[in-house]
């Protein structure tokens, strides 16, 4: 099996133009979740989200285009033979909103493949890739599939780019499901009241170890294991017993050839909904019963960025391993019983080289990735 390195990781989130700014804000316990000014919210169950303040649109294009432009500004040169995998749940759905309101809009931005096509064009890549959509586990699965393509010799380099937007389309839907918290979300807190949605984008450049060394790329982390599984239980709610997440984690650990005691920290999906958080804690307490592995969620800081969540969280996970610090779970104050001793309101030091990051989504999908600290040489 070929080793898969992450050689570059960039983000654009409401907590900063780049990953360094995001990391600093996370460690300070900051939150970007605030009142929405982008669309009227008086008829919804909440009025807050985590938006990038100055995400402006020019002409008929979607905000997705503007977000992607800001993301690629941070890239170092990407090899032309890189295979691009994008991940999104709703692409440029803001343009559907505009179109249905009679506002001129570029229709191609609405298509699910629009993010892929836009980036492929901007980066002038030679190879054809794809967009992957798997609800809120989209980018986690995109990273896993990208790693798999490298491991088995299909390609030497994969660029995984993920993004999703805060739109009235998505906000109204979560409101109708009564899933939105009226206050900034509080993952794993006893008094949590739902999720807060957010927007953002991330890109991770994956390379075979050999190719990365040839190009003298930094070794930020190794993608050691991955897994995905379906609950086969409910279309919008997680399985109470967490069977899918458990299967995904066990699969990832088997691929990584690691054991529970190897894991230094867990980046949880941690949305702040009653059922998601309970399900996750049940699974973590089961698999890591004998190991006090710290668990954190960054969704109290940047909201639930949906299809981009896994990519942004993997990028944060790289810094978690490099700095040996698990960031705080912003909004967490009164521990859910099952979270006691695992989840912290403050950042804490961690010991070890492996990080587990998980995401779950509508349609019962769950995905897990295990990262190993890179050598940075």
């Amino acid at each position: 099996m070929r080793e898969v390195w992450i050689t570059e990781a960039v983000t654009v989130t409401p907590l900063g133009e780049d990953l360094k700014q995001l990391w600093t804000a996370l460690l300070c316990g900051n939150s970007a979740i605030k009142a929405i000014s982008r669309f009227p919210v008086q008829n919804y169950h909440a009025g807050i989200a985590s938006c990038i303040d100055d995400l402006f649109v020019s002409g008929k294009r979607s905000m997705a285009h503007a977000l992607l432009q800001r993301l690629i500004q941070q890239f170092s040169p990407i090899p032309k033979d890189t295979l691009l995998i994008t991940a999104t749940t709703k692409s440029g759905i803001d343009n559907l909103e505009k179109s249905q309101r009679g506002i001129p809009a570029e229709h191609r931005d609405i298509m699910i493949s629009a993010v892929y096509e836009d980036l492929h064009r901007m980066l002038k890549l030679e190879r054809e890739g794809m967009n992957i959509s798997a609800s809120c586990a989209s980018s986690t699965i995109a990273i896993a599939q990208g790693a798999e393509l490298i491991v088995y010799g299909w390609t030497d380099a994969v660029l995984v780019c993920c993004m999703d937007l805060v739109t009235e389309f998505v906000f109204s839907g979560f409101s109708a499901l009564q899933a939105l918290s009226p206050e900034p979300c509080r993952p794993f807190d006893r008094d949590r009241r739902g999720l807060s949605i957010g927007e953002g984008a991330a890109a991770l450049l994956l390379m075979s170890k050999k190719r990365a060394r040839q190009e003298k790329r930094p070794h930020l982390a190794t993608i050691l294991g991955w897994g995905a599984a379906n609950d086969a239980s409910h279309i919008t709610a997680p399985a109470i017993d967490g069977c899918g997440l458990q299967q995904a984690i066990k699969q990832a650990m088997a691929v990584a050839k690691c054991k529970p005691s190897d894991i230094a920290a867990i980046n949880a999906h941690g949305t702040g909904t009653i059922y998601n958080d309970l399900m996750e804690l049940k699974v973590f307490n089961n698999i890591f019963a004998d190991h006090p592995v710290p668990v954190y969620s960054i969704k109290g800081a940047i909201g639930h960025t949906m299809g981009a969540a896994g990519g942004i969280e993997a990028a944060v996970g790289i810094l978690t391993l490099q700095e040996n610090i698990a960031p705080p779970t912003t909004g967490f104050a009164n521990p859910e019983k099952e979270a006691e001793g695992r989840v912290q309101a403050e950042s804490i030091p961690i010991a070890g080289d492996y990080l587990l990051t998980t995401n779950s989504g509508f349609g019962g999908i769950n995905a897990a990735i295990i990262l190993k600290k890179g050598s940075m040489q």
Partner: protein
Amino acid sequence: MKAVITGTGWVTSTTMGHGRNHDRFEMRPGKLPEITRKDVFEKPYPHFGRLDRYSRLGLSAIAFALKDAELNRWTRKQNIAMIASTLHGCLDTDIDYFSSTITAGGRLASPHLFAYTLPNSFLGEAAIFFGLTGASFVISEPSASGLWCLRMALIGMVGGQFEKVVCGTCDLNLPPLISETNTAPCGALFFVIEKEPTRQHLAYGKLRLDKKGILKFDDEEIENLSMLAEKCLLAISNKGMD
């Protein structure tokens, strides 16, 4: 990288059914049928009528494919993955959802419809109905061939990620809001692919992927999923399979 095809099922503008039933297959532009529960499922499935058109289409073709592979009846959940390819995804459902939402300033947003505004929701529906616990995701690729789902399935089998995969394509016609002319073939077509040929009597033939990304069915190159279905059906008639 190789595997065996053990089932195929489809719903297109002119036909629906599955390979072992010797149903006719063709995939071309045209109006898709209104699928009823009785067209696909023998037993009552009250939820089926409440699904959006995209989910009904995809779920029906998956149901036919699983029936073809004799995997539609289960008592314990099955570790079967699903990878679907789509060009437009659930755009039709998106339009329906947001039309109803803006009518009353968001007050009438339908939670039920919103749940199906993801291109992979129908895979979740299939997972629940057939107890499928493998990975499930949707691919959108620039080419209309839809072959990436097969490649991903075969690569995943090499790594041990998948043992059995349902993969194929699902697309409604483009809605008028987006395009005045619908010229691309529409419909849903799925295959069941198995790593270990433990059920030889169900094998249509062997699917192989070479290092250049070329897919071959019984040593003949395939260019798209429709061609694969046609070759499977030809294999059946040549072998005289039941």
